[in-house]
Structure formats: structure tokens, C-alpha cells
């Protein structure tokens, strides 16, 4: 039927598939035999299921319909067996094995590039049916194995090849040097020239043996995206660009997990559900673009979605909730630092961990993995419009792009990735001051600590030196200026770890042998900063700036239960807490929240949904604590100095935040009705009764409703209300009589003793009437 299926030139991906399938088949042959012998063996069944499943998956994007059809049919049957819907009888086992054999034959045929008659395949598939006649033995046109065209190599072997290559280059260099010294025969020179050219070419080839197209990483994405989106009920269109960019094989492996995680995140958290997208005026199908491009010696892998982006306010609120930083520090953070919080351990932007992205690695692990291979992760957040995550990694693990500098007569390399800028000191653009005895440099208005490399390394005794070249070095904590004597060159270097005694200084990231044949050390930017004693106060600068700007107070912006956006002064927010709705209940005339075996008065502007979790602000004025139920915290904002006056006394005023009107809650009204402490809880005097009924049945109910109960008054104590089972009134105290039957109750002074609501209402009414009197 389809000659084109294997008649076309094979690409690398197909080669990979063939090699892999062949390998698995070889490994599987033992399993097949064992399954044949014992069809009920679950482990064997699983192994064969995995095989056909993998083949099916690969066929999907390699466009191999014949293989897809076969593997799909076999997978269906095996799935039925796994689910216990079909029994693995001999006939079924034979039919499945015939298909596995056939898959092997087709793969060999594809590799050899010749057609294979497909007439028997319908029969093979038909044989899988439950009522099928015993299968005809599979057609035996196998054993067409063509010579393998790709081999798998051990990385160590490649490394040895690389190091042998370096030896060759050095030997060539030395030979050239020697020849320059003496008068060389032109013919010898020509020979050396030829050798040089060959060596250079060889070096290139050897380097390339480590390279692989990033397609190897991208090829699995279409299926993953489709499956992930489907399981979430979302529609996502994937666009892949730059699959032919080449990357170190080892690097490709290292990038796999971070990439998968970022893509899953994008689909799970980024792209909205179709209905939400429609409402936002977007196409229902989300777009995901995964692209790779080479930029100098670095590869940028970009994952861009057109989803909701990161809600920075929510990230901040979450950080406050998990106690990552205190609320004030968070408020003072610059915007970029707030966004960066998503890389903090244990902080996922979504509260509920989902099956898709909630397990395994978080963004903190993604960043750690990428940085471990000398890369960087950066974000471009467009709230409401999408998020782009860029992973920038070096082309290979072993070759680093560096800038070589001279200091005190020695040479050092700096990873190019940490070099932000090379500044030549000329004119007024740069100014150096001494802060105490510490030099500080100001470059275009930005003040940075200055470290003299030669001085730091003890290569120069004098404190004074001519400052002419500086390198702005970026570390994770901050940037600093490194004074060097000269910038010599940029160079691609094979960097290896130095001896432990050298690494222990913390100043160096490794050692290298450039073509000059003279060993060189690679400086570690962060290590140099630490050695020089630089301390980057993470948010100090930002805080100062904020303090100057701030006129109004900081407030927590939140979504209230009634859907309104409101704000409350940050100073009175003790913490934001998630509580079970069961802990909230309307008792003794008001809403209360049970926390840590205490009751807090709770304010809520709309009913709290039952059976769900509720978010509660715990507010305190230092003595009294109250709760305020909200829908969710949004952000920490700065209130404008002027508020539009409020008519409703519950609010201090109305502020405009963003473009929205926000009611600013007046905390005073929340605290004003609250009794100072438990001591002021109304005291109920329980008149003794014969069986201790009140003690048993009533105390708990009353205490839960916020009353205190005693059976005898301490000296000086005054009961707010007395409860009695006897008809006799208690002197000088409003009394609630409890009748033993419904008939005796009048609902005011006398209530039926098991009518809880009426009882509490009566107690409350008696206390009120006494206050009124």
C-alpha cells in the first residue's frame, strides 16, 4: 500500500526509532517466550503492553500508519487483558506475538528501505478478535536486517577522543613554534599547514560527535501536549520551531525534565479553560510555542503560551501565607523580585496541586537543574496575555564561552554568562568614591561595589592602581564591578574541575588549558564577591526607595466574599489562613471561627460556602483577635494618601487602585463590638439540679456559644443570667427557666430544655434586657 511510508530518505528521528525498537525487541524476546509459557504472568504482560504502547506513540508523529494500526490493535487487546475483560488464552497470546513479530519485520524493512507486502496484516489484526479462528503463522519474510547506520557510544569514550584531540592541537602548536624558531624548509611548512587544516577539521568533527539535533528533545512534545491538554479539558495548539538546532547530547538529557515541567505548567496553569478564554476574548484553543535558537555559543529554549500569565499578587499572597517572607518584606520587593518568588522552594502559583504539574519537580528544581549546567532561566510575564519562559544554556557541557582578563600579570577566565558589561573608565560616565576604605563605583547612576582582582588575589601590594577597565559581574545576589588590568580575549574553553584544595578557596570554578598551553583558572563570580566580603542586602535598596515614595500605608488588597475588591491596613493583618468551613459557625448570635481550641469572632460579608475551605484574615489590634473571611488575597498595595470619604461607617474610605474602586475596610469597626477578652464573656449561673443535667447537657452548648458557666458564684462575681430547672426564680439575676416538657414553655422566660435554639435565644434576650435596664 504505502510505499512512501518507508521509501523516503530516512531522517535521524526515524533512525532513532528503529534503533530503539530493535533494542526493545531484543530485550523483549525473553519476555515473549515467558509470556507464551505462562499467559497469566502480569509482569510479562506489562512489558509487552509497554512495548506496543511505545511503538504506537512513536508512530503517531513519525507518520507510520501501518505500524500504528498494528500496535494500536495489539494495545487494545492487551489493555482488555489487563483490565480483566479478556482472558489471555493461547489463541490471544499467539495473535499478539504474531503482531509483535510483524512489527519487527516492518521495522527491518523500513531500515533496509524496501517494501514489505502488507496483505497479511488484516488477518493478523482479525486474529486478535475474541471469536477469531486460530491465526495463520506470520509471514516469514523477516531477517532482512540491514547494517546499522548509527551506533551508540559511551560518553567516556567521546571524552577521551576530545582530550586526545586537545593533545594533538597542543602538539601541533609546539611544532609550529619550533619551526618558527629555525629556518624551516618550505615543503615542511606546507606539510605542517596541511596537518593544521586536518587537525582543525578533526577537532570540529569530534566536537560534533557529541552534538545532536534538539529534535530528539522536541519530538515527544506533540503527544505530551495533546495528552496533557486532553486530561485537563483544554485545547492547545503546539508550534515547534528550531528543531534542527544542535546541542550536546548530554545537555539534551539534562534539559528534558525542566522542559517537560515548564510545558506542563504552561498547559495546566497558564492556558485557561476554553470557556474562560472565550470570555476573555481569546481563541478557545490556547497556543504554545516551543522554540530553540542558537545565539553565539548559547542555546535559548523558549516556551511561550498565550494563557493567563502569572498573577504576581497571588504569588506574593501565597508567599506570605507559607511564611516565605514576612508581609512587610514582600511589600517592599521590586516587581521582578516578586515574580522571582515562583522559583522559591515549595511555592507553586496554584493552591491546589494538580495531577499534571503538582507532582515531582517545582520551578525551584527547574532553576537548579538549568543553573547546574551553566544556564539561566528567565521569565517574561504578560499578565492576562501569557508567559514566556526562556532557558538559556551553553551549547555543550564541556565547552564554556569565557572572557579572558589580565590582572597582576596573570590571566584568568570569567564565564561569559556572568559578565554583564565591560566598562572602560573614561571621562565622567564612571566615578569612583571611597566609602570609608571601600571603593564604590558609580556607572551611569548605578552604584556598585568595586573589587580589585589583582589586589584580591595578592598579586599587587599597593592599594592604589590605575583603574581603566572594569567588568560588571552579575551574581545571583547582586552585581559588582571587578577591576582588571586588561580584557584580553574571548575564548571557548574546555573547563574541568580543579583539585579540591584549589576549589576550596571558593574563588575558582575550574581550570582549563587554552591553546597557549599555559593552564588558566576560571573565576567564580559569586565566589569572588564572597571573598571580597561583599554583602548584597537583597532588598535594602528597594526598601529605601519605597520608603521615600510611600505616602499612604501598605494594605492588603483582597477579593471579598461578596465579590467586591476591598483593602485593609496591612498593620492589623496578623496572618492569612486557610481554614475548613466546618470551623466556622453561627453561634450565639454571631459568626465564629474555631481556631486552636478558641473561638474568634468572624466577620463575613457573604455566607461562607459550606464544606469548602475558606480563607480568613486574622486581624489583631494587639489585644483582641478577630477573623475576616475573604474569597482570596490579591496583592499588597500602597494606599493613596487621600481616600474618598465613605458614607458607610464600616469603611475608612474608597481608594483607586489600578483602575478600580476599592473600599478600604476600617478595622476599628471590626474590633469595636468585641469584648476585651474571655473574662468578659457573659457569666451563666447554672442552678444545681439533682442529676447534674445542666452540667452534662448545657455547659458545652453555652460555652460553645461564647458564655462562661459556673455552678456557684465566686465572691464579687455577678452572673449575667441564671438558668434553673426549678420554678423558683434566682434572686437579683435575670433567670431562664427550663421546663421538662414542651407544654410548659412560653418561649420567653421559660423554654423547653432540649430546644437548643430557643434556649440560646432566651439567654441572649435576658442578657440584653438586663443591659437595657
Amino acid at each position, binding site marked *: 500500500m504505502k510505499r512512501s511510508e518507508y521509501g523516503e530518505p530516512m531522517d535521524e528521528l526515524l533512525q532513532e526509532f528503529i534503533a530503539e525498537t530493535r533494542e526493545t525487541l531484543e530485550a523483549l524476546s525473553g519476555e515473549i517466550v515467558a509470556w507464551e509459557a505462562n499467559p497469566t504472568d502480569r509482569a510479562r504482560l506489562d512489558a509487552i503492553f509497554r512495548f506496543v504502547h511505545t511503538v504506537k506513540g512513536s508512530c503517531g508523529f513519525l507518520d507510520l500508519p501501518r505500524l500504528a494500526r498494528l500496535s494500536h490493535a495489539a494495545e487494545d487487546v492487551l489493555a482488555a487483558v489487563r483490565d480483566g475483560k479478556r482472558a489471555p488464552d493461547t489463541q490471544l497470546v499467539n495473535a499478539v506475538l504474531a503482531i509483535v513479530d510483524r512489527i519487527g519485520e516492518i521495522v527491518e524493512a523500513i531500515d533496509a528501505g524496501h517494501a514489505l507486502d502488507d496483505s497479511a496484516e488484516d488477518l493478523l489484526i482479525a486474529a486478535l478478535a475474541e471469536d477469531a479462528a486460530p491465526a495463520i503463522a506470520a509471514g516469514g519474510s523477516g531477517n532482512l536486517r540491514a547494517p546499522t547506520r548509527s551506533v551508540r557510544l559511551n560518553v567516556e569514550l567521546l571524552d577521551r577522543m576530545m582530550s586526545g584531540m586537545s593533545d594533538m592541537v*597542543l602538539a601541533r602548536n609546539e611544532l609550529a613554534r619550533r619551526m618558527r624558531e629555525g629556518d624551516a624548509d618550505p615543503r615542511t611548512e606546507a606539510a605542517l599547514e596541511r596537518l593544521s587544516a586536518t587537525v582543525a577539521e578533526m577537532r570540529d568533527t569530534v566536537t560534533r560527535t557529541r552534538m545532536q539535533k534538539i529534535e530528539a528533545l522536541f519530538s515527544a512534545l506533540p503527544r505530551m501536549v495533546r495528552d496533557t491538554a486532553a486530561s485537563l479539558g483544554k485545547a492547545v495548539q503546539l508550534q515547534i520551531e528550531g528543531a534542527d538546532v544542535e546541542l550536546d547530547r548530554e545537555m539534551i538529557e539534562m534539559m528534558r525534565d525542566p522542559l517537560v515541567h515548564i510545558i506542563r505548567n504552561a498547559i495546566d496553569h497558564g492556558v485557561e479553560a476554553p470557556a474562560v478564554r472565550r470570555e476573555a476574548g481569546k481563541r478557545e484553543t490556547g497556543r504554545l510555542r516551543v522554540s530553540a535558537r542558537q545565539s553565539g555559543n548559547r542555546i535559548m529554549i523558549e516556551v511561550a503560551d498565550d494563557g493567563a500569565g502569572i498573577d504576581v499578587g497571588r504569588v506574593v499572597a501565597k508567599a506570605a501565607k507559607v511564611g516565605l517572607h514576612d508581609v512587610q518584606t514582600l511589600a517592599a520587593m521590586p516587581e521582578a523580585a516578586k515574580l522571582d518568588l515562583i522559583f522559591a522552594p515549595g511555592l507553586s502559583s496554584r493552591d491546589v496541586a494538580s495531577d499534571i504539574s503538582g507532582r515531582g519537580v517545582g520551578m525551584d528544581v527547574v532553576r537548579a537543574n538549568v543553573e547546574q549546567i551553566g544556564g539561566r532561566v528567565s521569565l517574561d510575564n504578560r499578565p492576562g496575555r501569557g508567559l514566556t519562559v526562556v532557558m538559556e544554556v551553553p551549547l555543550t557541557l564541556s565547552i564554556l564561552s569565557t572572557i579572558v582578563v589580565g590582572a597582576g600579570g596573570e590571566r584568568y577566565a570569567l564565564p561569559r554568562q556572568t559578565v554583564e558589561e565591560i566598562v572602560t573608565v573614561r571621562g565622567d560616565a564612571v566615578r569612583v568614591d571611597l566609602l570609608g576604605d571601600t571603593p564604590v563605583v558609580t556607572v551611569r547612576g548605578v552604584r556598585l561595589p568595586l573589587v580589585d582582582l589583582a589586589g584580591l*588575589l595578592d598579586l599587587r601590594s599597593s592599594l592604589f592602581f590605575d583603574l581603566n577597565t572594569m567588568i560588571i559581574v552579575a551574581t545571583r545576589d547582586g552585581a559588582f564591578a571587578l577591576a582588571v588590568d586588561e580584557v584580553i580575549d574571548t575564548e571557548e574553553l574546555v573547563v574541568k574541575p580543579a583539585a579540591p*584544595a584549589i*576549589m576550596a578557596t571558593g*574563588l575558582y570554578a575550574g581550570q582549563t588549558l587554552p591553546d597557549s598551553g599555559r593552564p588558566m583558572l576560571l573565576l567564580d563570580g559569586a565566589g569572588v564577591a564572597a571573598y571580597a566580603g561583599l554583602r548584597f542586602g537583597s532588598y535594602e535598596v528597594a526598601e529605601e526607595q519605597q520608603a521615600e515614595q510611600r505616602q499612604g500605608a501598605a494594605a492588603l488588597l483582597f477579593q471579598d466574599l461578596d465579590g467586591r475588591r476591598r483593602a485593609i491596613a496591612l498593620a492589623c493583618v496578623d496572618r492569612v489562613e486557610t481554614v475548613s468551613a466546618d470551623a466556622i459557625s453561627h453561634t450565639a448570635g454571631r459568626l465564629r471561627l474555631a481556631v486552636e481550641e478558641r473561638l474568634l469572632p468572624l466577620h463575613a460579608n457573604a455566607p461562607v460556602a459550606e464544606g469548602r475551605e475558606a480563607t480568613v484574615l486574622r486581624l489583631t489590634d494587639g489585644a483582641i483577635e478577630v477573623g475576616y473571611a475573604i474569597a482570596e488575597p490579591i496583592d499588597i498595595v500602597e494606599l493613596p494618601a487621600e481616600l474618598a470619604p465613605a458614607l458607610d461607617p464600616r469603611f475608612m474610605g474608597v481608594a483607586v487602585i489600578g483602575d478600580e474602586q476599592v473600599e478600604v475596610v476600617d478595622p476599628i469597626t471590626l474590633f469595636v463590638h468585641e469584648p476585651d477578652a474571655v473574662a468578659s464573656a457573659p457569666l451563666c449561673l447554672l442552678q444545681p439540679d439533682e442529676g447534674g443535667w445542666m452540667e452534662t447537657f448545657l455547659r458545652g452548648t453555652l460555652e460553645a456559644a461564647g458564655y462562661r458557666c459556673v455552678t456557684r458564684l465566686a465572691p464579687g462575681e455577678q452572673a449575667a443570667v441564671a438558668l434553673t430547672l426549678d420554678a423558683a426564680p434566682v434572686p437579683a439575676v435575670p433567670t431562664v427557666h427550663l421546663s421538662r416538657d414542651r407544654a410548659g414553655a412560653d418561649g420567653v422566660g421559660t423554654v423547653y430544655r432540649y430546644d437548643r435554639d430557643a434556649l440560646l435565644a432566651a439567654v441572649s434576650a435576658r442578657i440584653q434586657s438586663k443591659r437595657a435596664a
Partner: protein
Amino acid sequence: MTELFLIAHVAGRGVAIPADRVDSVVDIGEIVKVPRADPAVRGLAALRSRVVTVVDTGLALGLAPLGKTARAVITRVDGHYYAVLVDSLEDVASFERRPIAFGAALGEGWRAAATGLVERDGEPLLVIDPAALVPAPLAQAA
């Protein structure tokens, strides 16, 4: 049972280095300094395409630094190559290794590096393990 030893001179004394701990014997070329590292690390040197860490054996033994010498014994410790400098090399010969059993009070550096002794024509020589001369990472950077 006898072993093969390299007889070398370090800080004016003869020592025996077990041959199986020696990768090769070389003359080191130019040494690149490693500022702020352990003083016993004299620097880095290139050996064909390999970078080796050069150890000043005198300082490693807690004695005065070795003089100008290029002669070194290459040894491999934990995947790293070290060039352990010696004043001179004399000989390779088989000896029987014996314990240091007569209560000689060795200096601290020697005691850490010595693993026994051999006797050459009646002259006792300490057996030195070159790996023991390799400076351990300092506990802290400063």
C-alpha cells in the same frame, strides 16, 4: 615480599615512594600560581593536554619550601593529577617494607606521610605515600 620503590630526595633526605602510586616521573615546565590556595599548592602546570596541580613537598611536610626543582612524581588522587615535587630521583629498586617499630618521634608532616620504612644498604628510608602529601581542602575559604 618485596615491592618496587622509587628512591627520591626530598628536603635533603632520602625517601622511598611505592612505585604503584606513581603514574609517571616528569620535569615540570612553567607553573601558574594559584592565589589564595593552600601554600603547599605551588600552582598549575600543563602536562601534555592535562593540567596538573603542583605540590611543594617541603611545605606539605611542614618544612621549608623546596628549592628550584622541576622534577616531579605524578600521582592520581580522586581523579585529579598532582605533580609532587622532589629534589632529585635516584633509583628504582625492590625492597621489603617494614613497619616503623622502634619508636622514632617523627615530625608531624613526616608522620602523616610515612607508611613504613625500607632499608637500603643499611640506611633506613621512610616510605612516603605521595597521596598523603596532597593538601586537603581547607575547612573554610578564608
